[in-house]
């Protein structure tokens, strides 16, 4: 049996033309590729730091 209130919660307001600009600015541009690249770069930075520490020692 369909419950009206429960089903109603699944409906979201439509994006009106006036709100498109605000939505564009608010959207999160980060995707999985960015995260992976960030991760890889983070890993590289850590490796470089370890190498430097070893050299100093």
């Amino acid at each position, binding site marked *: 049996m*369909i419950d*009206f209130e429960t089903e109603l919660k699944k*409906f979201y307001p*439509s994006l009106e033309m006036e709100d498109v600009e605000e939505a564009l600015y608010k*959207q999160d541009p980060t*995707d*999985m*590729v960015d995260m992976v690249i960030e991760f890889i770069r983070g890993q590289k930075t850590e490796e470089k730091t370890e190498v430097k520490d070893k050299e100093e020692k």
Partner: protein
Amino acid sequence: MICYNCGAELGPNDFCTRCGADVSLYKNIIGAANLAYNQGLEKAHVRDLAGAVSSLKLCLKIDKTNIDARNLLGLVYFELGECGLALKEWITSQNIRPTKNIANDYINLLNKNRGELDKYNQAEKKFNQALGYCHQGESLDYAEIALKSAINQNPRYVQALQLLALVCIKLEKWEDARRYLQRCQKIDVGNTTTLRYVGEIRNILDMDEDSVLQSRGLGFNKSKKSDIDVTDVKKESTDLYAGSVVRRETKTSSIVINVAIGILIGIAVSYMLILPARISAAREGVDESLKAAAEQLDAKTAQIGSLEQDIKTSQNQIEKLQSELDSYTGEDGRMAAIDSLLSAVNSYIENPEDMQAVAGYLDRIDESMMDEGSESFNAVYKLLMSMVGADVSSGYYDSGMKAYQEELYEEAIADLTKAYSYDNSNGDALYNLGNAYRKSGDTVNALDAYEKVIAQFPDTEMATRSQQHINELNVD
């Protein structure tokens, strides 16, 4: 595929040949994004728009630079009636790749059709307003009106159609809800929300129809297997309408039969009731027309009769006038008589001795002109006759007697008649005229001439002889 580190074109290796960066994971991720895009494209082809949205959103979550996925997502949103979301995706795509991007064309198309765009925007506003009414709980009628207005402005607005169907379900307007959900299914085939609502309505209507059909003894045979199965509606396939097709066909055929029966009844009623009245009205009209035509005919006939009478009268008048005219202008007419008289006068004036010429003109004048002529005509004629009558008479008497002696009685009669007419006192001419008639065998005119002699010249020898001739003729 390009390297995320240096931007160089990547080859089949798991590392960048220019900068040496490890790209194996990167390649896997991009591959996953492309797979999601392909799935989204496939679903869009079969009109599973809700499924296409989720696949394309996944693709963009993995790789936001996938322009094709972003443009396609915008297109799917637009088809679902979500113009704001579509515009957002296309503008984002335009920012990522400003040139050689089909998103530019989509945006330009929207800008050209501002009127349509405003309509779709208004539809979205109405939907949001209706959603607000629904959340209030007590304003479902207002919500229904707002949603109907929204779908009027944008007939492909799937979310509005679904919400309207939900409101109708809440208000127990099952048929309206089913109608709106059918429209949703035509646009977005695989939408799970729509399918759930359709299933719910089917269950409710199944219970209602079975009870009605059973009460009429027309139970629905559910055990019959056919290509269209009631349970198919729960499967994810394109024949989602199968469950309701059989019931629709039954309803449709009964509607058609009822309409046909109604039409036949209407035709019978018109034939029995309306047609005779129309026929009699038409007949009355025809009779009236005939009456009017007959009256007109009578009037025309009377007119024709009257005109014919007028023609007759006119013809009589013409004849009369013609005869009058002839009396003036003919050979024996007045004009001719006047002309003869004038010619006689003129001849006498020019040569009084030439009695023959004068007599010739006077002979043309008919004695009947004396009665018809004017006073002046008669006066001139009498004067001329008094002046020349005796001489003319003498001349005719001589020629008449000469012809009598030569036994040319016809000629004698003519000349002696003229002699007597020019001079009534010429008894000899009258007496010899009688003799000429007697000799020619015309007893009647002879007796008449002798009697005139006796009457006009009594106690004369001519009278005595005339009496003798009369006695002789009577004895014969």
